[in-house]
């Protein structure tokens, strides 16, 4: 298949694929039309979309051409657009391979575990930019307030950052005027196979956390749950209250209706139902504020490109081009991009949902939202003040949203089951 443009290409494509001829954009010139001059973000996005649509319409030639162009733009150590492009291109290649059996595995275990980090490296990782710290701060502050006066607390921690959230909570509980509560933190054995990946087990994390709590004189217990998630199994004691913390978690629960369930509930909704049934005192939900679960590939590409430029831009602002930490952080986002763009069905595990949609889902599931109080907002605000300018915070009804240069990045919400017996 020769990739000749204009003249002969038209003839060839007419023979091959009449639809190509009908579609004025079904050629590289079409793809690049309007992109004269510099290839900026808009052009790159166009190219990505063209590549995807070429793939979907079996136009190998065009896909190849566009990939070649994208490859010229892409660079993992260039400016944010170039970096983004490199990850997107990789995702598209991954997608192509998925259909073309060529002996390559993408997004598989081995590749994922290629990079692990130590606990202290992870501690640094989560503070590289306030992306995670925002959620930690808002959640811990809300939890602290919610458990005032309680002497026994059990936290169910569903997150992907391996308990990096808890040291600051333990610290604030240690300084509580009425003394710290007895604290139990439980994590599930299962964790989605996504970065960041530790080079030690969750048990080790628990050991260190327990060690720290002991050092801070906070009675502490760490559990790893393998059993069924219901009150009797959790072993809640008499006056122990339950806190459920979901950070970057719900997006890994599939959202399609299940074929076998009688009520066609999705996994995500079923999970919410279960945790509601546990009658928690407060439920925290923090995640990335973008809708990336659409079944339409093009819309995912656009949305993803127009969302992930935010952290790439932030990293560009604070870290030099050759910073290893930055490149690793970007690689992890690249992993996410690859999953969102390169995969379908059950393999596409990253199904992000925006804060607004999530809020609606929570309300449908029988939760009512809790407002973050002024002190919490002040705490988050002063935390962001310690980071450089550009990071901001918005309040959208009861939702707090981290913003970078005004663009929404991460949302934080707090919930309580409706018609709860407790106050």
């Amino acid at each position, binding site marked *: *298949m020769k*990739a000749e*443009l204009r003249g002969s*290409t038209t003839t060839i494509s007419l*023979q091959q694929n009449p639809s190509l001829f009908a579609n004025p954009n079904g050629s590289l010139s079409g793809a690049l039309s309007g992109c004269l*001059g510099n*290839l900026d*973000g808009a052009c790159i996005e166009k190219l990505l979309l063209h590549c995807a649509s*070429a793939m979907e319409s079996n*136009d*190998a030639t065009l*896909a190849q051409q566009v990939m*070649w162009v994208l490859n010229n733009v*892409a*660079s993992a*150590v260039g400016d944010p657009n170039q970096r983004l492009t*490199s990850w997107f*291109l990789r995702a598209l290649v991954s997608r192509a*391979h*998925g*259909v073309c059996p060529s002996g390559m595995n993408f*997004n598989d*275990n081995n590749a994922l575990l290629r*990079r*692990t980090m*130590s606990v*202290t490296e992870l501690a640094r990782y989560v*503070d590289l930019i306030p992306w995670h710290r925002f959620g930690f701060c808002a959640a811990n502050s809300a939890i602290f307030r919610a458990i005032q006066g309680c002497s026994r607390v059990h936290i169910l921690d569903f997150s992907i950052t391996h308990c990096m959230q808890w*040291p*600051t909570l333990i610290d604030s509980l240690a300084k509580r005027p009425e003394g710290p509560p007895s604290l139990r933190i439980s994590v599930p*054995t*299962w*964790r989605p196979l996504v970065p960041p990946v530790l080079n*030690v087990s969750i048990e*080790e994390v628990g*050991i260190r956390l327990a*060690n*720290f709590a002991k*050092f801070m004189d906070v009675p502490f217990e760490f559990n*790893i*749950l*393998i059993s*069924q998630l219901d009150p009797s199994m*959790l*072993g809640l004691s008499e006056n*122990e209250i339950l806190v459920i913390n979901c950070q970057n978690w719900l997006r*890994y629960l599939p959202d*399609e209706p*299940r074929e076998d369930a009688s009520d066609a509930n999705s*996994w995500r909704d079923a999970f919410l139902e279960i945790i509601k049934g546990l009658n928690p005192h407060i439920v925290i939900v923090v995640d990335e504020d973008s809708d990336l679960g659409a079944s339409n590939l093009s819309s995912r590409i*656009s949305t993803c490109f127009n969302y992930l430029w935010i952290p790439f831009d932030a990293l560009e602002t604070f870290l030099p081009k050759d910073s290893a930490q930055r490149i690793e952080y970007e690689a992890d986002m*690249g992993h996410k991009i690859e999953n969102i763009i390169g995969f379908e069905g*059950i*393999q596409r595990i990253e199904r992000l949902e925006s804060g607004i949609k999530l809020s609606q889902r929570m309300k449908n599931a029988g939760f009512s939202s809790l407002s973050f109080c002024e002190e919490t907002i002040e705490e988050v*605000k002063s*935390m962001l003040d310690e980071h450089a*300018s550009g990071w901001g915070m*918005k309040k959208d009804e009861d939702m707090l949203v981290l913003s970078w*240069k*005004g663009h929404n990045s991460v949302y934080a919400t707090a919930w309580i089951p409706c018609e709860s017996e407790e106050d």
Partner: protein
Amino acid sequence: MVEFDNSSPIASASGEACVSSSGNQTAAPPAAIAKKKRSLPGMPDPEAEVIALSPKTLLATNRFVCEICNKGFQRDQNLQLHRRGHNLPWKLRQRTTKEVRKRVYVCPEPSCVHHDPRRALGDLTGIKKHFCRKHGEKKWQCERCSKKYAVQSDWKAHMKTCGSKEYKCDCGTLFSRRDSFMTHRAFCDALAQESVRAEAEAETETTPLLPSSKGSSKEQGTVASSSSSPPQPPLTPSTSVLSPVLSIQSSEAPENQPASQPQRQPPPPPPPAAAAGAIATASGSSASTGSSTGVFASILASSAPGPTGLSQSSQSPSSVSDMLCPMGRPLPEARLHETMSHSLSSSLFLRSNSSSIFPTTGHQYAPTQQPALSATALLQKAAQMGATGSGSSFLRGLGLEFPSSSSDNQEKPLVTSTAAMWNSRVKQEINTVDSGLGLGLPIGGASSLTDRMVGPSSFYRTQPTTLDLLGLGLGSGVAPTAGFSALLTSMGGDGSAGAAGAPFGVNSGAESWRDPAEGKPSLF
């Protein structure tokens, strides 16, 4: 400066500065405002008015000057209020009653990312600061650390914290913020070592162990070191409070449990986990090994369905003491195994440097590395590439083979011929692919693609072990839903283990998406 907005995401409307016509300004007249109305995908408000100000406008600081005392103000409103003090006539401009449209501002610098309306900034202060910071001169400098700033408020903010508060961990690392210090401290080796010392000095008795399974304070032995340092000797059991968490490091599969933990791993199928209760027995550190033991069922299932999926061990409370015995022994072999594989992988990951888009060895692809190639130039190059046929080698390197046919073969439908080619390429030649595949794919990409080359094709044949994205415990031949089906059954109240079908019809779904070439040849 934090842009904290208590209301809806509409930015502060200080747009008057750009449309002002106050008589007292002596600076350059405001720039022409280009009001472009476009649909802006990705933006929260596609109806927003895009405003493009000139560099002069953005850099101008105190454009409103008092005629009496020459004091300068950024905003006309502020100047008017100041004029009151001189008993001069003053007038505050009222907000117009017309409907307020959200305004977004773009950067005038064409190469800037914020030149694109979809990357526009939401408020005037923001765009001014951005322009100043990114494209302006850095006039402010910190004396202590010599960092330079273009915006005065940035400089001020920095001066507040520079050298003022510093937190130092025992390991020597310095932190400027308490939260990052605290987080580091909790997991730092220095703390672990300190508690060892404290315990050694204290020589107190351990608290008696209560046999109850709930909320009792159980002492945990080892403080495991990070994988980089040699494993420390196990601590006396009085170190930390920890419920019975097993320090079991499972490698790839439950069957590989080290011999020291034989009783923890009952051979599958495990008994119902109903008795597990609050006792946390973590068998299979799925997170770090990514093995098939990471299953959803661990949260929600009442029983482990598939044999290979779970390495669940449900214990009755009476085995608490059993659990404690092996805890004292670290598992250096298992950890080392992990460490080695991880370090191998990480070295594989890190070795490829993507400083050049194309590899220095191996394939010769189009030898350009100019990210700033114009679109037209790329177009031409792509056309040339196609004409000379070298383009097909580009994708062959990717493993996407195209029939290297001349135009004579064009009567064959495009799809079937290429599909046939691709189908025949099940065994990928590793040799054709260099690190980076000539794509200059980023660090992870390069090596992992190479990694992936070595593995068997998974998508096509059902080798579910490699599709363990969800840690579903894809055993051989078992539908990749071991965990999920368990989850299903538990949630559906169904007691049967593993009987539920695949959610989303995984197998069928996978096949329908990745269509085999028979019948419906599809390239992508």
